[in-house]
C-alpha cells in the first residue's frame, strides 16, 4: 500500500489485480468457490417479505443458495445491502466465529447480487424453543443450553462489532444447537442504533470468544486484508467505524466484560473519527 493512501485514505482505492488476488485468498473457502462458480440449475422466487424478495437458486452438481438481487433493493435505504451480506461474511470469517453461511457476490442471469449458502433443515429462532414458554418445561438439556448460550454470545458480540440494527428471531437460524446469522444487510451501521437478538452486557466473555477475537486482533496483516476487502464493499466511513469498534471492544475483552453503559461507545460520527 502506498504511503499516501495509508496516510490520507482513499474511499475508492482499487488494488492492482495481482495484489487483489493475493489479498483475497488467505481465508477463501471451497464453499465460496462453489457459490461463485457453479452454474445455476434452477431458481424459484421466494414469496413474502417486504423487501429484497430473494430467489432460491439450485446449482448444478449440488448446492443451493439464497440470491439477493441488487436490482430489487428498491428503497434508497436498502441500496447496497447485498454487499453488506458479503461484508458480514468476511468479517465473521476473519473473526473465526463461523456464524455467517458462506456468502459471495456474483452474477446470475445477468443480475448482480449476494448468494448465501442455503442451510437445509434449519429453523429460524422464531420457530424454535430457545427459551421455554411460560408454564412449559424446558426442551433443551443442560449441555444443549450451554452450547446454545455460547453461540448466542458469539452472535451478540458479532452484532456488537458490526453494529447491526436488525437482529431478531426472523433472521437467525438454529440447527443442532448451532446458530447461523442470516439477513445481514443492516450491518456496518455508523451511528443510528444497534439492535441485538439478546444482550450479554456485564457477563464474562467466554474464553472461546476471547481467543478468537485476540487471534484476529493480533493478526496485523489479516486486519489490513480485511480492511481492503471491506473497502471494496462499503463506504470508507463504514469500514473506519468497524475498525474503531474493534479497538473499543479490544479494551473490553482485556477487561473481561462489556459493560452495559458501553453502547454509546460504539456510536461514531464518521466526521470525527481519527484517521
Amino acid at each position, binding site marked *: 500500500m502506498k504511503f499516501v493512501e495509508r496516510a490520507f485514505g482513499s474511499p475508492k482505492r482499487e488494488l492492482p489485480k495481482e495484489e487483489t488476488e493475493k489479498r483475497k485468498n488467505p481465508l477463501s473457502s471451497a464453499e465460496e468457490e462453489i457459490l461463485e462458480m457453479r452454474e445455476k440449475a434452477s*431458481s424459484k422466487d*421466494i414469496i*413474502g*417479505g417486504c423487501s429484497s424478495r430473494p430467489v432460491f437458486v439450485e446449482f448444478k452438481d449440488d448446492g443451493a443458495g439464497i440470491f439477493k438481487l441488487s436490482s430489487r433493493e428498491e428503497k434508497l435505504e436498502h441500496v447496497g445491502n447485498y454487499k453488506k451480506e458479503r461484508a458480514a461474511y468476511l468479517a465473521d470469517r476473519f473473526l473465526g466465529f463461523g456464524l455467517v453461511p458462506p456468502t459471495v457476490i456474483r452474477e446470475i442471469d445477468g443480475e448482480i447480487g449476494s448468494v448465501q449458502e442455503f442451510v437445509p433443515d434449519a429453523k*429460524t429462532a*422464531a*420457530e424454535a424453543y430457545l427459551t421455554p414458554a411460560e408454564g412449559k418445561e424446558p426442551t433443551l438439556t443442560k449441555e444443549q443450553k450451554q452450547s446454545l448460550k455460547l453461540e448466542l454470545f458469539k452472535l451478540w458480540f458479532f452484532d456488537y462489532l458490526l453494529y447491526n440494527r436488525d437482529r431478531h*428471531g426472523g433472521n437467525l437460524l438454529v440447527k443442532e444447537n448451532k446458530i447461523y446469522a442470516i439477513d445481514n444487510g443492516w450491518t456496518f451501521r455508523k451511528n*443510528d442504533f444497534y439492535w441485538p437478538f439478546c444482550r450479554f452486557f456485564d457477563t464474562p466473555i467466554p474464553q472461546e470468544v476471547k481467543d478468537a477475537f485476540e487471534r484476529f486482533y493480533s493478526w496485523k496483516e489479516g486486519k489490513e486484508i480485511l480492511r481492503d476487502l471491506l473497502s471494496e464493499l462499503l463506504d470508507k466511513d463504514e469500514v473506519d467505524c468497524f475498525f474503531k469498534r474493534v479497538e473499543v471492544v479490544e479494551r473490553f475483552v482485556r477487561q473481561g466484560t462489556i459493560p452495559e453503559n458501553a453502547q454509546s461507545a460504539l456510536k461514531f460520527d464518521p466526521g470525527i473519527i481519527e484517521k
Partner: protein
Amino acid sequence: MQYVEFYKLKNDGSQEVIATCGMKDGVVVCEGDEALIENLAKDGILDYSQSPPQKIFPKEGPRFLEQLKYNFKSGYLNASEIKEK
C-alpha cells in the same frame, strides 16, 4: 377478514404455509406452528415504523399484522402482505 400467512422455505426451494395470523374481534389470533405462535406472543416483533424500533405484540392488532412482513423477510420464513378474505 384481514390475515397474514407465514411461508416456510423447504429444502427443494418450495414454500409451505406453516401459520396464519388474522384479526378476530379486534385482536390478532394466530394459528399453526406452535413454537412460532408462542414466540410471537412471548417475544413480539419489531415495529420498524418507530426509530429505534419498538417491540409490539399481537394485542396491538392491525399494526402487528402490518409489521410482520418487515420482520420475516429472510427467505427462510417470510410473512405475506396483509390479505383479505
